[in-house]
Structure formats: C-alpha cells, structure tokens
C-alpha cells in the first residue's frame, strides 16, 4: 500500500460500473463522499453515517459494502458497482428494477439503490430465497416509507419469474 499523508489529496482510481474513473481524496475522505462529490454519481445515498441504514451500499469487488464506512483510498484500484450499473445502456430497467416498479417497492427512493445492490449480490449466492430468508437479508437496510411489503413481493416475483433460479428450473 502506498504511503498516505494527512491533508494530502491522493489519486484514487476505480473501475466504477465497468468504466475507469479517477479522482483525488484525502486519506480520511469517505467513499460515499468521494463517489458523490468527487466522481459525481447520484446513487450512493448517505442516511446514517454509521452503517446501520444501508442506503450507501455498493459492491466493492463484488462484496456488499457500506460506502459510509469505507475510506475512498481503501477502494483504490477496486471495481465498484452501484445502482447505475443495473439498467442497460439505453436506460432499460433490469428485470429486478421492473419488479420493484410493478410492486411499488419504493416510495421516496432514497434507500432503494443500496437495497438493489444488496439484493443483487445476495441473489448470486441464493437465487431463490424463502420470504423469511429474504426478509432476514433485507433487515440490513432501513426503509421508512414502504413497510417493505412491495420490495419483498418484487424480489420474490423476480426470483420466481426472471432470476437465475427461475431459469434453472
């Protein structure tokens, strides 16, 4: 790891949603601040700054991570995926996103991008969770608008009809 100095802005390079990006960050700059204010994406939402709410969840090298508990310099050289990566290049929603729309799985939408990233990683491990398993996983996120009903239905519908589990059957 390179020597990091306080008060010095170090170059930080990421493969963000498949594209190389570069910016600068002091060692103490949070990844959430870096993505929002240095790179300029709009999906990494900060809801609690202490890792409870999950709104800032991104994937770092495929691992579900809280961007508010990660320093930008820790992610230097990593592949970071955010909700911007889910739709295709024309903006066509993914099947998971469409399921959220169909089942009214979001209201204000502030927690949604982080939740989508957790679900994306989770379903890779477990393509067809039961409702209890899914609710257990989703309990790592706080949503104050929806009561979670729509998003649970959305994911179960997606797993039944579109996800990897559905295709496997």
């Amino acid at each position, binding site marked *: 790891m390179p020597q990091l100095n306080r*008060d010095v802005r170090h170059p930080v390079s990421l493969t963000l949603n498949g594209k190389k990006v570069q910016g600068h960050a*002091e060692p*103490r*700059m949070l990844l959430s*601040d870096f993505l*929002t204010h240095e790179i300029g*994406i*709009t*999906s*990494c*939402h*900060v*809801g*609690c*700054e*202490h890792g*409870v*709410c999950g*709104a800032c969840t991104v994937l770092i090298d495929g691992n579900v991570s809280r961007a508010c508990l990660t320093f930008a310099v820790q992610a230097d050289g990593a592949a970071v995926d*955010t*909700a*911007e990566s*889910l*739709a295709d290049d024309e*903006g066509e*929603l993914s099947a998971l*996103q469409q399921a*959220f*729309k*169909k089942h*009214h799985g*979001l*209201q*204000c*939408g*502030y*927690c*949604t*991008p982080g939740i*989508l990233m957790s679900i994306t990683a989770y379903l890779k491990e477990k393509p067809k969770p039961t409702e209890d398993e*899914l*609710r*257990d996983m*989703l*309990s*790592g*996120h*706080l*949503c*104050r*608008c*929806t*009561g*979670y*009903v*729509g*998003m*649970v239905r959305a994911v179960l519908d997606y797993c039944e009809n579109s996800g990897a589990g559905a295709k496997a059957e």
Partner: protein
Amino acid sequence: MADDAAVALKERYVGQPVERVEDATLLTGKAQFSDHLPTRAGTLHAAILRSPHAHARILSIDTSKAAARPGVAAVITGEDVRAISDPFLIVLRQPMHQWALAVDKVRYVGDPVVCVVADDRYHAEDALAFIDVEYEVLPAVVDQEAACEDGMPLVHEAMGANVASVRDFTYGDPDKAFAEADRIVKLRTYYPRNSQTPLEGFVVNAEYHSGENLYDVASNYQGPFTSHPVMSLALRVRNSQLRMRTPQWSGGGFGIKVQIFPYVVLMCLASKIAGRPVKWVEDRLEHLAAAAAAPNRVTTIEAAVKNDGTVTAFRFDQLDDYGAFLRAPMPGPLYRMHGILTGAYDIKNLAVTNRVVMTNKCPSSMVRGFGGPQMYFAIERLMHKVAVEIGMDPLEVMRRNLVPEGVFPYRAAAGALLDSGNYPEAIERAVNEGGLAELVRRRDAARKEGRLYGIGLATIVEPAQSNMGYLSNILPRDERARNPKGGAVANATVNVDPLGTVSVTADSIPQGQGHMTVLAQIVADELGLTPDDIKVSLDFDTAKDAWSIATGNYSSRFSSATAVAASKAARKVRDKLARIAAPGLNVEPEKLEFAGGKIFDPVNPDNAVNLYRVAGSAHWTPGNLPEGMEPCVRETGSWSPPELESPNELDQINTSLTYGFVFDFCGIEIDRDTGMVRIDKYVTMHDSGVLLNPLIANGQVYGAFAWAVGCALFEEFVYGDDGSFKTGTFADYLVPTSFEVPEPQILHMESPSTVSPLGAKGIGEGNCMSTPVCIANAVADALEAEGVNTDDLALPLHPSRIAKLIHGAETAPAAGRPELRPHPEKPAAGHMLTGDGETFVPAPPEEVWRTLLDEDSLAAVIPGCHRLDRLGENDYRADVSVGVGPVRGRFIAKVKLDELVEPESAKLSGSLTGPLGASQGEGHVRLTPEANGTRVSYDYSIVLTGTVASVGGRMLEGAARALVRQFFNRLVAQVGGGPEPAESWWSRLLRELGIRK
C-alpha cells in the same frame, strides 16, 4: 381512428393501479436529491456546534482558534445572528425568542450554538473542536408534568412559567352527562416522543445576493408555506426576497422537513456574513437530537358511560410537551385534530383542556399523524377499558357508539363535518373479510396452551387537508375575530406547448408519495391522453410557481387539494381547446370529447382533430383564435373548499376537509420469558373515498403501518432526567426492519367524499393513528387475561417494559461490586458511569502522592493531555484529546484535588467539556503502602451529556475503564517503576470476561 377513440374513451387512468412515472429515475440511481444539486465554485460548507447541555447559560464563546483553522471562512455565533435577524414568529404571544443560533442560553441538547463555514465539510467540522464555549449549567426541566409545577426551572424566564397556553373548551353539556352516567371510566395515557426520521436529513443551499437583497435557497423543505413568512420576517426581507426552491426528489419527509426552516435562515445569514454561497447537510446525530419530534402527550381522559355501553360524554385533559421552543406551526398537534376529538363516535358532550408546556428537549413538530396518534391512543385505550369495566366485548362497545349509518354529512361535537361513510358497514365487512372469529378461536387455543395471546381493536376517523384556521382556536374568541383565518388553497398549472405536449406543475412538494403519477393520471383523463404523455415537474420555486400559505406536503393534503387543483386546471385547458377546435369541427364545444390524442364529435368520431394541432394554433396562429381568447394554453387551477371556515362563536371548527374511516384489529403473542411482542395477524379496513391509484394508496397504508409498528414497539426519543439525550444513533433509536414488520391485510370500502371534487380522501396517516393503539389494546388483552392491570401501558411496548408487567421489576444481582458512594448533587443522572479498581505502583506512597500533586508530572499522567494550566492550588485546567470508540474529540478538562490526606487519600472532582459532550464526575484515590510499593485503589462516578452520551451509551463503560487504566499505567511509568507485576490468570480471565477492569 373511430375504434381507437371508442376504446380510448373507456380508458380512464384515475382509479387504476398505474405504475409510477417516478420509478425509473429512482431505481437507476439518477434522481438528484438535495445533496446532488449543483453548487457554484467557491461554495462554503457549514458545520454546527451544538449544546451538550440541556439547559445552560452561555458565559463566553471564544472562536479565535477556530477562525484561524485551515479553510475556515467565518465563525458565526448567536450574537452575530441577533445583530442581523429577528426571532421567529410564533402563534402565541409569549416572550419565547428563538433565533437561528442560541442566544444567551442553550435550552436542549443539540441546540445550535456556533456555525462554522469552511471550504469543505471536513475542515468545518475540524474547526468545531477549536471553539471554546464556557457554560454555566442550569438545572433542566424534563418531565412535562413536573414542568407545570411552581418553582421548577424555567425554559424561558421571561414567560414566568413553563406552561405557554391553557385553553378550555366545552361542547354540549358534559357536566350533565357525567352526572347522569351509570359509571365514569377514567384513564391516564402517555404517548412518547418519536419521529418517522426520513432517511435523507435536511439539506440547505443558500446564497445571498446583495445587489437584489435576495436570499436564494434550494432545500428539501416540505412546507407548509405558512413558515415562509416566518423565515422572511426573521431575515428582515419581504417575502419575494426569500426565494425558496425545492428539488423534485426528496428522501422522505413525514412532516419533519418543515423544521428545516431555522436552518434555512441560519445558512442565509451565514452566506450574507461570509459573502459566498453556503451549503449544509445535516447528519444523523443532528437529525435525531435536534431536527424535530412529535410531542409527547399526557392525557387524562374520562368517559361518561351507561350500563348498556353507551358513552355520552368525553372529558379530556391534554398536556403536550413542545420542548424548548414553539416553532411554527406548533402547537399544531394539539389543534389539528380538534374538530374530531370524538373520533368515530357519536358523542355530543365534550369537555377539553389543552395545555402547552415547554421543557428542555428538542422542539416538537408535525410528524406523520400530526396529533392523531396521541389523541386516538387515549380514546381507544379508554374505549377498551370501558369494555373491560362493564364486561362487554370491545367490538360491541365500539358498535354501540359509532356515528350511525345515514347521518352524513355529520357535524361532530367540536365542529368536524364528517363528509361521508358508513362506519357500521365498514366494521362488519372487516370483521367478516378479515376473519375476526377465526382469530378469536386462535387466541382461545393459544391461551389453552398457556400462551400469552391478545386481540386488539381500534377505530379512527382520518382527517385530511387541514383548515388553515385550525390554530385560531388557541386564541381567545375576540382576538381571533379581529383576524379570522380559514380555508386551504391549492394550486396547479397545466401547460400545452407549441408542439402540443402537456406539462404540469403543482404545489404539493412530494417526498415519495407518487404525486407525479397521480397528477399525470388526472390530467391524462381530462385531455384524453395517457399518463406517459404528461410531463409532471414537481420541483418548486416560490419565485415562479403559484403558491399560498397552504402549499406543501403535510396533513394528507394531496388527494383533496393539489389533485383537485390539477383537475380544475386540466378542465380549463380542455375547455379552451374545445373552444378552439369547435368552429373547425362545426360542433358545440361542450359536446366535444377528448380521447386518443384527438378532439372529436362523439356522434361522428371521424369528425376529429389532433389535440396537438389545436393547441399549436394557440401558439402559431393566435390571430385565428376565437374572438377575445388569449393566446397560449396555460391554465392554473386554484381552489379552496368552502367547508373550511374559521372557528365559530361556539369554538367549533371543521379542522379538515375530508374524513376517512379506519377500523383495525390484530392478534399478538407475547413471549412470556422475554416480553417480546410478535404481531400474528393484522387487518386494516380503510374507507378513504375514491382511490385515485390503488397501488399507491396501499403503499401509503403499508408505510404508515410500518412506522406505527415502530411507534408501538420500538421508537422513542429517550432523555435522562438531566435532559441528556440518549438516542442519537439508529442503534439506539430503533427503527423496524423487514423482519419486524409483518404484511397487514388491507381492506377497502369507497364512500366518495361529497366535499372533494375527485371524491378522494386522505389515506397516508390513518394507520399512524390506529395501529399503535390497536397493538397496545391487544397487548392489554393478553396481559389482562393474566390478571395484570394495564392502565399504565405506555408506548413503546418493548420487551423490558412488558417483562416488568409480567414478572415484576427486575432486581439487581446480589453479588458484585462494592457499594459506591452516590453522586452528591445529581442523584438522577444523564448517563452515569461508575467504576472502581486498584493497581500496584512500584514506588512508595510519598512518591505517588508527589506525582499526583505536581503540575508537570500530572500533565504527563493524564491521557491525551496537550497542556495543563494551574487555576489555583490543586486546581487545573487541561486541554486533552480523548477517544471513545469511533468518536474522538478535543476537550477542556477541569480537575480539582481536595480532601487531601497526605500521603493516603484524595478526592478528585472535575468536568470535561468539548464539542462531543460534557461530563462531570468525581473519584477517590487511596494509597496503601505495601512491601515493594503502593497499592492504589480508586472509584469514580461520572455523568455524561451531549454527543458522547447520545451515541456511545453502550461503549462508554469500557472506554472509561480504559482511560482510567491508562491514567494509572502512565502513573506507574511516571514514578519510574517498571511494568506492573504479572497479571494473575484469574484476574486476566475476569478482565477478558468484562467482569473486572
């Protein structure tokens, strides 16, 4: 096209579960929330130093060191703010002056004291640690009932008391009803302080333009715009010189985002002082400690009851705790529900006393439900008790007292005009479709197995669209007669551009309620288009959009307010287009139909013209328009329902426009060992009139229900008896997750509103009012079966509270630590840490003693000490850096040694003050000579307030032990000794188990 048109004619979008037009932007992470708004180069970032004390006089503020820190552009104090702004206007004539920063005194933990603006947020926060504020801590008043008593500390001395308002109201003849009652059933209920805590906190971008003397603000303010004049008056400008913009996307509001207004003013002033734009983003701790909370309420409620279960009168005494300041529109929660104080019941006699009290807590605010949760908690707990006392089924008591079928419009005792409904039918349908009988069987079976199972009921009337005159009732009749207030104006604009595309703007300021979708549905229906054809933009700008005092998103205002204004605007556009099209089609304009993007003669659908062509002619060839018609197609609909009048001479007021009906029942089971409540089944019946979009309507029910489950079981802002704030993180303020919130069964009935042109009522707040008390009644039912008295059942019903009711109060384990001396002055602490221990120092007692009393060696022994100044004999002031878990900060420590018995014992007392909090404590040190050195034993008790206490409750004990341990380790090093004697395996085990330090 004829067939298409005929098909399209049948296609109406209002009432359909249309998927939301908002979702694509939100799901792809492309929505620009307030933190994403562009800021121009040179924008400064603000951080706020907040009070660690609940109540203290500000003796001095030294900002010089902070001002010299890197990147800092300005450091602003209450005196700076007082010089260029005025206190916020309040509803009552009380000398309760609040500026954007604390002046003279701080009145709650989190009260903003100093604002730093710097080139980035990190630098601004750094500088906070270099501000020295000297406080004289005053006794705090925390309990709302104690606050009413004489001789208590005063939150506002100039008021002469903490009670800011007392008003009595009488309707009908309650004294007679109570005198003639067969029995009087009485209950005292307590509803806690809580908030729905939007995940996105406050964000303010403010810029002062000196050339125009204009403040330009972009923030996630949600209205009501009654607080716009409050801000402009504080800023000493005309309304038009405060331009308030809100972005399209806002991460939840729930009423709380009205209370951004003091920070709007603060950032405006900061921009003026610094001469640059200023941005501030609230953090979670700030939000939980200092944004806003629903007022906690103590209600004493009595019912005059006949033996057949009929209730003939209610008597209320409502005491609401508004915290340190009354901020507009407070005390709304006490008056917004006023007209409907009799709930869903046909009760003609009513007596009410409303009291507003101030305490050293965060100021209260509107929070989803807005007075309803507090009021219905009292009413429905009482109705449950009535049933228990007269030995009748609670459902039967409810039925017996409901507003009967066929009496609508019904004028309730305190003035609400219930517009429509059929309450008995709604209940019967819910009982049947929701399966109450089966649930009763389940309860009986569970009880046979010895399980704790209960069923609860609740019924409420859900008001929507507040009458702007509702707060007038707090004023005496003669005073309000001079300046009568009433009504509720809504505005929306529909525009058709030169190419015929339709756009809509409106005054609803949503935070996720799907208003764009519903407005698109409404306008599409009027103009024969599809929702995808309608571009709705709900970002808002007071300099450009039509607005009024009622503008904003609160009190379920949308479906009977802005939605109606939009339908009126769309109807005007339709009428205009019909008039333009009529000559060409040779049909009377009133006879033309709109569908499939065409305007046509329904008798001969081939006689048609494209809507875009008709609209285009108003732009391209205005000379061809009918005689006297203005060019362009842009119409604003404004409306205020005539039913919303000012209070009358009997103090009756129709506080809201529409009144929906909700009936809930649920089954819960309590874990007998832990006291944990599990919701087994929940059924909620809503009659909210016409559902404009059932998908969105159900979403509102699910959301309100989830928060209500939080209110019932988890959520409360907790304060220590000294006013310290204890729930500053989401690990302390517990919010329900997907695992705790079951899916309720939602049932609907649709009795169209007769006073709202679309027939729709509110639906987003009902469960906030019905669900907490429904769950509480179920818990009561379960406990009563065990013979437990449930009169004092208070929310939230967390396991420790219920376990206490089942098993009695827990007793402390007998064995354990030696008894500690109680803290002398402060028996009731904020967060009290106590501890004791001993260590061995390989030096004689005299040497240890010298080290403790010598200035230089003491400086070396205190952990994190940068500097030690001697204030007097054995009296020191130290500048220290201390870390507690992840929280690290700079503190000023004052240490005094007295009760000196050389070289045997001493008492240490002192305080620690810094931006992360404050503490006061004392300890005793005893030196006992041993063979090779000295045995040093000590005990301490420390009281903490402020940030550290708010966030770190659980880790503080360990941290305190670590600090004390460090102190003595350093003492050992200082007196020149080697390492401590090797630790015994026994003490190491105890330490690792956390039993010993």
